[in-house]
């Protein structure tokens, strides 16, 4: 198998060079320390809604508002005792020298939990269930709950579990969902709605797309899609689309910012690919139309992926609305294929996924919206890696024109995760991480 020899320069979201001559292997989620930390924290972090737990136990709505058991109520000062509860949880979740992080926030209404990596032996669900178990035990201890009332606390914390393995109504939220909610093996990191990511980066489109793509591509590694000779394609896509490699994404958005359209970005990208020697004229047809060819489809795909995200950014930002992603993806790819004869992003799969995504994001089938999209769905899971960052970027740009806004669906994630530097500034963190493994 040929060694991966490509190098790129990494730039931030304002076109400043962060680090040059980075071998793309240094931005692999298997090697880059910042990416490893992001993926690890995503699976190990949990947000506890203590105020919600207190209210549920008080009203008997133990597994959400539709699951009320009258008489099964208690008045417990859970929020008031948040510090004591957090302290007990920390003792229980820490493993010898590896301390768990259990911090009460918002005056004790919430607790941020990071279980130590040592807690997870095989299944990432350990983070969630151990947090729930520790919370149950801590509340019972701190609030002196006896055996006859223990079920109320347990129901309040665990929601509909175990009758419902989805844990409907639980007060413990994690970014990754329970394994049965995954479309298939390796999908855990793709099962995060883009609004959570948009809120985490404080609605900045380029860092949002970067964080979204890091998680998507990490999942591609986990699902066996980036194996052997396929790995180079994934790394190039991640570099050019997600990490603004060679400042190409930034430049295309800037050049087309004032009066550009989806089509003008498409043609900018084709010119760039020609100038960089990625594509070359192959044959000339009767009308004068030139069919282009390439010796490096993986590099072409990376260029096309960056162009697709730039087209979405330019159109969505002109509209200051996030709804146009599927259509922009569809016609960026359609026009680039018509312009060159070369394949669209992920060899036609981005375009294919865009059709059904348009239906699902425009209330034609049910009441979804682009903000709650993630890569873990039958209509979005192809293309792998390149597609979902476009949704995240558009939701960052949206001026609250949609029903599912980041503020509405993901405020808690934004407050909690946005405080972690790797999540808030993924472009910078990945560049710093790359320096360590170059």
């Amino acid at each position, binding site marked *: 198998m040929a060694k991966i020899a490509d190098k790129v320069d990494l730039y931030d979201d304002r076109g400043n060079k962060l680090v040059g001559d980075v071998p793309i292997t240094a931005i692999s989620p298997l090697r880059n320390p910042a990416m490893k930390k992001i993926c690890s924290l995503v699976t190990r972090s949990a947000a506890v809604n203590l105020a919600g737990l207190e209210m549920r136990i008080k009203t008997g709505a133990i597994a959400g508002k539709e699951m009320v058991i009258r008489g099964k109520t208690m008045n417990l000062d859970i929020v008031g005792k948040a510090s004591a509860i957090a302290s007990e949880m920390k003792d229980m979740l820490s493993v010898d020298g590896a301390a768990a992080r259990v911090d009460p926030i918002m005056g004790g209404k919430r607790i941020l939990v990071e279980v130590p990596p040592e807690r997870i032996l095989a299944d990432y669900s350990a983070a969630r269930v151990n947090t729930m178990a520790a919370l149950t035990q801590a509340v019972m201890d701190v609030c002196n709950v006896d055996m006859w009332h223990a079920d109320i606390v347990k129901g309040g914390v665990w929601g509909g579990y175990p009758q419902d393995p989805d844990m409907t109504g639980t007060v413990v939220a994690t970014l990754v969902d329970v394994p049965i909610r995954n479309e298939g093996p390796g999908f855990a990191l793709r099962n995060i709605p883009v609004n959570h990511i948009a809120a985490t980066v404080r*609605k900045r489109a380029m860092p949002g797309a970067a964080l979204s793509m890091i998680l998507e591509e990490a999942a591609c590694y986990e699902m066996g899609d980036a194996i052997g000779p396929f790995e180079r394609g994934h790394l190039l896509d991640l570099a050019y689309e997600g990490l603004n490699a060679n400042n190409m994404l930034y430049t295309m958005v800037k050049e087309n910012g*004032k*009066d550009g359209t989806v*089509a003008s970005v498409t*043609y900018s990208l084709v010119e760039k690919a020609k100038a960089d020697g990625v594509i070359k004229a192959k044959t000339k047809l009767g009308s004068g139309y030139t069919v282009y060819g390439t010796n490096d489809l993986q590099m072409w795909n990376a260029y096309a992926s960056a162009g697709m995200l730039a087209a979405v950014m330019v159109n969505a*930002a002109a509209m200051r*609305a996030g709804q146009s992603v599927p259509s922009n993806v569809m016609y960026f790819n359609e026009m680039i294929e018509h312009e060159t004869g070369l394949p669209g992003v992920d*060899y036609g799969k981005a375009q294919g996924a865009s059709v059904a995504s348009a239906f699902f994001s425009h209330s034609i089938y049910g009441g979804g919206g682009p903000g709650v999209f993630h890569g873990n769905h039958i209509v979005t899971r192809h293309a792998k890696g390149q597609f979902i960052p476009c949704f995240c970027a558009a939701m*960052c740009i949206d001026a609250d024109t949609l029903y599912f806004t980041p503020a509405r669906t993901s405020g808690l994630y934004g407050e909690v995760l946005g405080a972690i530097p790797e999540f808030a500034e993924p472009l910078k963190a990945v560049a710093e991480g790359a320096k360590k493994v170059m």
Partner: protein
Amino acid sequence: MPQYTPGSSIIGKNRRKFMDKSQKLEKLRDISEEDIVRLLAHRAPGEEYKSIHPPIAEMEEPECAVREMVEPTEGAKAGDRIRYVQFTDSMQFAPTTPRIRPMMWYNRHRGIDVGVLSGRTIVEGRERDVEKITKEYMDNETYDTARTGLRGRSVHGHSLRLDPNGNMFDALRRWAYDEKSGNVKYVKDMVGGAMDKEITLGKPLSDDELRKRTTMFRNAQGGVWMEGEDPEVADVISEIHWNRTCGGFQPFTARDKIKGNKGVGVKGMKLYTPKGGVE
């Protein structure tokens, strides 16, 4: 300079003309802005635009580099609601088609969301941007008064036979044909609601004229037969097909190194319909 799309026939040329924003589309009529508002039925003529957020200049936008680089449209700047316009194009040689409309609009307009569903094409956008697009594309050569319809709902008709005067079927009877003058007028708005006045769109183009202006390959009724008369279009589609297929298999292997018969359905393709199609 982009090449837009292949084809040496009149269809290829028309497609490129519609997509190329440096080419001005011919204006065939002039519907007043007030009548456009009537037809769309999103607001009453003279009524102020409703907004869903304050003007962008008054909002505190996040410190996002993309927002700073990209200028919002007039409608977005003002915080207009998202509204839509939708056109149905008859398969009987309407000037444009759902195949071409999105590529035409994405070349010529920014800040829009275009969707195609069988015979109709919708474009969503900020209200004043949508009104501008509606006026432009009801006035210009992409709209024929008989073969194109402004239809918000009950859009069907694109694949049906025409009436004796050459008009496309409309279940809601939004349009009426004046046999004396030969003009088509709209008597109901885009969704079939009542209007306070009728709006005359004008005379339809002749069949010969439509065949010269259409962007549709059609192997029937004197249309251009793509496979037989403009094969380079099918050749490029075939090229895209094989690039997708081989890239989807092993993007790191050159196409000519992948074994197997890759000529299926391309050269010497057996066509079961003769020139002129089967009526």
